[in-house]
């Protein structure tokens, strides 16, 4: 196998991936900084020119976002308000140069606990489509991510697309990220919330928190507590103790567990308050 190849189709990619142990490279923005020199002793398959991995389309099974779609393309797309959180996250992944190269598929396959793409996709009940010589399979994003830098992706699988089912495209969402400074930071905590409000009452609520547990999580207990409330009442209904118990956050160099738990609850309140304002105005 040549040290570098840039396949022009998905079948070609799968064929190459089945040989030896090559490394898939999309935007390269996680691969380069995160690893040390050894990786490039493996052949590189550059998947940035594979057409099947590109584009955002609305089809019978919902919204389909190609795994190779860059953050800049996601930010610029015309998407329903349920995807606001995803588009806001897209604009906070590094600076513009990173957004021009970095892809949604790379963000998910790299599986950092601080990956900004994950909470917005969790509140959209996103499903991952993977291709291998055995065919296609779909896995819920919540199941796909199994631990820090661990996923259900098999070595010979390529992530083809992220699919948001139609049912989750209702309502509006919002994303809030906390870092040590305003720009270019790895999240200490980030949240995405999506509310469907019907006749002034919350009919569906989805809350997700990232960087506060080994894998970003939905908070079903806290979601339940919001149902039936007026949007303006939701922020006050966030119970910090319940959020902390659901997350079991981490101590690391960026923040302590106690700080993270408090921050997560506060970010949820702010995100809900912002959504409530939109409903009021």
């Amino acid at each position, binding site marked *: 196998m040549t040290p570098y190849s840039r396949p022009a189709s998905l079948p070609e990619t799968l064929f190459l991936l089945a040989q030896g142990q090559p490394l898939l490279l999309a935007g*390269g*923005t996680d691969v380069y900084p995160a690893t040390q020199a050894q990786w*490039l*002793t493996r052949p590189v398959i550059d998947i940035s020119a594979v057409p099947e991995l590109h584009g955002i389309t609305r089809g019978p099974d919902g919204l389909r976002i190609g795994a190779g779609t860059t953050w800049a393309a996601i930010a610029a797309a015309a998407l329903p308000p349920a995807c606001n959180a995803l588009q806001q996250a897209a604009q906070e992944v590094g600076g513009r140069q990173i957004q*021009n190269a970095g892809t949604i598929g790379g963000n998910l396959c790299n599986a950092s606990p601080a990956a900004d793409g994950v909470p917005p996709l969790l509140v959209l009940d996103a499903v991952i489509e993977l291709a291998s010589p055995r065919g296609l399979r779909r896995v819920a994003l919540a199941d796909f991510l199994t631990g820090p830098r661990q996923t259900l992706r098999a070595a010979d699988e390529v992530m083809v697309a992220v699919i948001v089912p139609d049912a989750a495209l209702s309502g509006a969402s919002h994303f809030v990220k906390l870092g040590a400074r*305003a720009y270019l930071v790895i999240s200490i905590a980030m949240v995405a919330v999506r509310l469907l409000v019907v006749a002034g009452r919350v009919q569906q609520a989805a809350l997700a928190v990232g960087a506060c547990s080994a894998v970003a999580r939905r908070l079903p207990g806290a979601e339940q507590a919001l149902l039936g409330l007026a949007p303006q009442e939701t922020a006050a209904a966030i119970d910090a103790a319940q959020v902390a118990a659901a997350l079991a956050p981490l101590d690391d160099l960026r923040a302590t567990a106690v700080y993270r738990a408090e921050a997560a609850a506060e970010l949820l309140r702010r995100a809900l308050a912002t959504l409530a304002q939109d409903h009021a105005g």
Partner: protein
Amino acid sequence: MSDSERKTEPVSKRRRNFLIGSAMTGVVPVIGWAGQAQATTQAAPVDARAALNVALRVNGRLHQVQVDARMTLLDALREEIGLTGAKKGCDHGQCGACTVLVDGRRELACLTLAVAAQGREVVTIEGLAAPDGTLHPMQEAFVAQDAFQCGYCTPGQILSAISCVHEGHATSPDQVREYMSGNLCRCAAYPNIVAAVLQASQQMGD
């Protein structure tokens, strides 16, 4: 950049030839994107076939270079082609000093493989001025607004700023700050940089 600087024989050529030579003896340090610090301490098997002939189009000129698959576009520009305008601030995508335009988009040359830039149009700071030396409006604006101190971040700032204007993200000071956040300035010339980008965006008419 002066012509004499452009023609300087790249220093790394000798080192690289030496490494390819030592591949025959078995153990070769891995060099490339991870930086020279690792180069001397890490050993790994290297496939000698990894040397590739790559044609890179930079500032409208085609350059034939021999690189191994691991070399970044930044190293190829600086050490193989001799265009040292793109700076290596961090080599980790965090500072923006290596920003170049690839097919018109701003990208980080330290996070791009040289082989992956084949068939694409690369523009560096050396390619901005007209042949008669007339500066690009963004270069003019940086001079007029005194938008640098040491100048290390400046080539990356200017290329990033040109893209920022073309993207339509230079309509207000806040927007410029947001969309220029990938370019750090250790001298903190930020207020002047913002003023320069706004000035040039009017002259560029985008």
